[in-house]
């Protein structure tokens, strides 16, 4: 399976230049206004990773990889693990850059940075968990529209919640405030696991 993870990283290696440029631009923007741009690298990295599905599909890689030992199972497993690693890596780098900038600007708020970074990681993994079963079922080309709709819906939900934060019953808000450290990771772990299970099930039935 390590081989398949390597394959995906070798595939996106070519885009590293682009990602580095985005990071650098981000650093300069962050001097002015920090937290709003913090989501961008993680979202870009996952969209970048979606391209590996396109490359695979274009060269009918799946059918070829099925002829390897443990082929089918490892194809699904490696996609989930690679994404997790990539998003984790991107969020960590972003966080480190942010911390350095905050120190230079003399406005370091480490708790805020950690929370926002975690929120960023959680929302990207949530998005990925919803997308992957669709991609494995319909292929990346057909899922592309769904991806954009998915991102749009996610942004809409976040917007809706933050706009109507006043009308949510105070009990729910306080419950969330007190236990979010358990609730959010739990939601992420559950969606990620269910998503993996579904994708595997879909993929095992698929023919090429």
């Amino acid at each position, binding site marked *: 399976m390590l*081989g398949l993870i390597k394959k995906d990283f070798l595939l996106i290696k070519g885009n590293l230049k682009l990602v580095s440029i985005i990071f650098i631009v981000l650093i300069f923007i962050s001097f002015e206004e920090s937290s709003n741009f913090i989501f961008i690298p993680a979202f870009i990295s996952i969209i970048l990773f979606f391209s590996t599905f396109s490359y695979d599909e274009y060269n*009918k890689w799946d059918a070829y990889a099925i002829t390897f030992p443990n082929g089918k199972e490892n194809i699904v497993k490696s996609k989930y693990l690679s994404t997790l690693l990539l998003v984790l890596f991107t969020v960590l780098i972003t966080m480190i850059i942010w911390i350095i900038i905050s120190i230079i600007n003399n406005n370091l708020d480490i708790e805020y940075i950690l929370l926002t970074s975690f929120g960023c990681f959680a929302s990207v993994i949530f998005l990925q968990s919803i997308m992957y079963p669709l991609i494995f079922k319909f292929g990346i080309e057909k899922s592309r529209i769904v991806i954009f709709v998915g991102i749009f819906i996610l942004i809409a939900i976040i917007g809706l919640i933050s706009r109507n934060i006043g009308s949510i019953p105070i009990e729910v808000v306080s419950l969330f405030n007190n236990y979010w450290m358990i609730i959010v990771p739990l939601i992420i772990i559950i969606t990620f696991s269910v998503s993996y299970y579904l994708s595997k099930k879909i993929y095992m039935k698929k023919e090429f």
Partner: protein
Amino acid sequence: MINAVEIKNLSKSYNNGFKLGEISLNIPKGLIIGLIGENGAGKTTLIKSILNIIKIDTGNIKIFDKDYINYENIIKEDIGVVLDNMFFPELLTLSDIDKIMGDIFKNWDSKLYFDFLNKFNLPIKRTIKNLSKGMRKKLEIATALAHHPKLLILDEPTSGLDPITRSEVLDIFQNFVQDEEHTILFSTHITSDLEHIADYIIFIDQGKLVLNENKDTIVDNYGILKCDIDDFNKVSREDYLVYKKNKYSYDFLINNKSKIKKKYRDFVIDNISLEELMILMIKGDK
């Protein structure tokens, strides 16, 4: 173990109406088996079934004497494949393939892989995308061989190769089966390739197995009996398999050359090439 692959009652239907099978056949170990047939006859479907890329409707398959589903991962360590237009994403370089495959096959042999690349004059740093069609085929063959497989399954491995490279590649295949544990299943419609190297011929037409025969038996027993238009009725029905009408003559496909030669002394009886055999069996009338 005498057979590398044993197939029993395999069938597979598609929604578009195409049906493969039922097919039962054995692929004997240590030989080169040629799989021939028209485009769309079911060659690739058969190969994909053996590799469990598609699920078969009925039947069972044994590879190296083991059930191909229950022991899939063990079996696949020992299979090398060249599939038609299915390979690594083309942004990868030739050395990337080595890095990846080293973690996939226990027996991956980097040295052997790079030896093949050298032998084939393939540039290591280049991406697959920038290879010519022939170079790409050679890369696929090198990749299939580099983990010391026991069974090579090749779908059109010589298409797109120039004559010189083709003979190079066929030599490699022949060397490969010098080891009696090694077997090659080789699908092609360039039948002249098989003329040189195949030991067995499997012929599929419209999803059905129409011929499964030792190549020497085909060469010794099959032939074409030629006669003028007027002499058609002189050939009795039980002596031929199919016939084809030409402009001034008839061709009869026979499978008992020595006996027929004695019986029809006045007619010309020619040896048959695999290509002629294929055309007669597909296009001929009963």
